[in-house]
């Protein structure tokens, strides 16, 4: 179909003025992709789709949503009322809002798997360090966008979650109070906070689009890694397939499969038992009544556990910051020449344990703390950091397996 379009006169007219044909060829029809890519390589495309869906549904939600904490009848607010109006009175408002709310969780799910794939097959290693680093920036912006977005319905968990997190900044020495006040637009979470969070919630996805473009540009410069983590001669047709139609069709199938899961949740279980939309967020924000148990949404809980694992608040904040910052230097901590965990027996065990560790951290952060869970969380926090530090020394002990010659 693409060929037919490219042969038309209109396309020729456009091409002479934009160089469209060269772009299509270099990025799609003549862009080589290793032919041994497995199904773990589809999550980048799925993440892009979810980003687009989040932006589109978000634009429509913003047409009806009103960022105001002004109190209305029954202890609700203008913001809460506007969300309920979307759910009840706007045509297909429920579909748009559930798609957006569930989409946030799906976005993190897909991006975490995407990152896990990069870690397992060594996609962060030379020459793809910057792709990984841009990916970490994308993750941080996503977390910011999710945090800002969660305040908008102005429910109990919106309000108290934002209060807990903005108070964290207050614990930073010297500048803490100033940062906290700048974030909140006052001395506590209130109407000015809601307004600026709405503004930032609209800004961050636009930043995401720009950085995702950089992420993909860098990828298309150095080309995809592959499950064996070996350097491939990308001009040898025995090694590669063309991105279009081979990879596009594979991605299309995977996206469609993913949409079944996504839409199943949207249509049949949008709250996901309180994991995607928390129970307390159906209660309007009340600054005089703290919910029994304040927990962030599941995708932020691993970091919340790291924060809670230390008695001194400031140390906890530093550890949480470090746990994200260490992702930036990950490519430089790992000096092994071999990329894929398939040929690195020790790294393979370590990285699988790391995946389990992050799930354990997430579980500990979501549940009310008990003494046991606290210790489990502390052990998991220790392993989180141990994993990265141990990479520095790993090449001295690890005996890697011989790499295959080609695919």
């Amino acid at each position: 179909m693409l060929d037919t379009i490219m042969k038309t006169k209109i396309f020729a007219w456009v091409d002479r003025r934009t160089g469209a044909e060269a772009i299509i060829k270099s990025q799609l029809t003549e862009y080589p992709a290793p032919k041994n890519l497995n199904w773990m390589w589809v999550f980048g495309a799925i993440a892009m789709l979810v980003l687009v869906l989040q932006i589109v549904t978000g634009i429509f939600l913003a047409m009806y949503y009103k960022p105001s904490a002004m109190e209305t009848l029954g202890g609700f607010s203008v913001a809460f009322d506007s969300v309920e109006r979307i759910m009840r009175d706007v045509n297909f408002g429920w579909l748009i809002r559930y798609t957006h709310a569930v989409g946030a969780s799906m976005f993190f799910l897909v991006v975490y798997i995407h990152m896990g794939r990069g870690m397992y097959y060594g996609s962060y290693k030379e020459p793809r360090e910057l792709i990984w680093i841009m990916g970490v920036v994308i993750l941080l912006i996503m977390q910011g966008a999710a945090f800002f977005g969660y305040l908008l319905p102005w429910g109990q968990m919106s309000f108290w979650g934002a209060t807990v997190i903005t108070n964290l900044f207050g614990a930073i020495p010297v500048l803490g109070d100033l940062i906290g006040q700048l974030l909140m637009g006052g001395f506590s979470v209130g109407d000015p906070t809601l307004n600026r969070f709405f503004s930032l919630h609209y800004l961050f996805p636009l930043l995401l689009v720009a950085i995702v473009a950089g992420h993909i540009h860098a990828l298309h410069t150095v080309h995809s890694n592959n499950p064996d983590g070996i350097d491939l001669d990308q001009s040898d047709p025995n090694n590669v397939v063309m991105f279009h139609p081979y990879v596009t069709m594979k991605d299309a199938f995977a996206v469609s499969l993913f949409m079944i899961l996504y839409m199943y949740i949207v249509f049949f279980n949008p709250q996901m038992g309180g994991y995607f939309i928390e129970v307390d967020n159906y209660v309007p924000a009340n600054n005089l009544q703290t919910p029994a148990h304040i927990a962030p949404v599941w995708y932020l809980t691993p970091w919340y556990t790291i924060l809670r694992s230390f008695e001194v608040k400031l140390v906890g904040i530093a550890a949480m910051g470090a746990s994200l910052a260490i992702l930036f230097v990950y490519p430089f901590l790992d000096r092994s020449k071999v990329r894929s965990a398939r040929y690195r027996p020790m790294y393979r065990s370590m990285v699988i344990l790391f995946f389990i560790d992050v799930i354990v951290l997430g579980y500990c952060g979501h549940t009310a703390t008990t003494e046991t869970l606290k210790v489990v969380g502390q052990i998991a926090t220790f392993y989180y950091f141990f994993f990265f530090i141990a990479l520095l020394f790993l090449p001295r002990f690890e005996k890697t397996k011989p790499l295959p010659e080609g695919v």
Partner: protein
Amino acid sequence: MKLNTILLSLAAAGMMFTSHVALASGGGVALKHASIDVVDRDQLLRGLTVFTDVCMGCHSAKYVTYKGLMDYPELGVSRELVDELRGENPLSSGLVTDLSPEDAIESYGKVPPDLSLVVPGRRGGADYVYSLLTGYAHDHDGKIPEGNYNTYFPGHSIAMPDPLAWLDHDAEETVELEQQANDVSAFLAFIADPHQNERRAMGKYVIGFLILLTLVLFLLKKEIWKDVH
């Protein structure tokens, strides 16, 4: 073991984990099971009656309008009944109680919460509402006044006085009261998300379409990749 299999089993383990936690979050006491059906018009209408006759003495459901009672196909309340219920209120008005917040504080010590979203807004949902309504009991320690002790309320001391007169009811009334509690739980579950039946009905077609699409794309992918070895 390939990474695919590892991740899949991790995801499966994670999902099992979460479903257990969701079940266990009732708040100490195991809840009674409400028998509700949000597509059963008779039950919803009986629930509406309980709501307007009993609950609305103190509680509101401000997101549900009188017009909504007529328009939602699951309810389809007649204009005559709506006119009777709304009195002087406009059709666009929500189901709002006549009890003023000031009077409520004087009588009960707090403002009764709006019930529009009480089902998704409480752990246990409709089961919690049903358990609460049929959970009034005598306090064995005698600390909490009669009519303010509820087995299922966190802390047991509830400001709401036994609305269905569950306490000291005789055996013949049990079935009737349980039905009232079930009916009003069903009504509250319905109004929390009035498009839920439409959503589930539409969902079947959406998932059906997506399965077909996935099948076609799978065959297309296979066809295109057949010359790659």
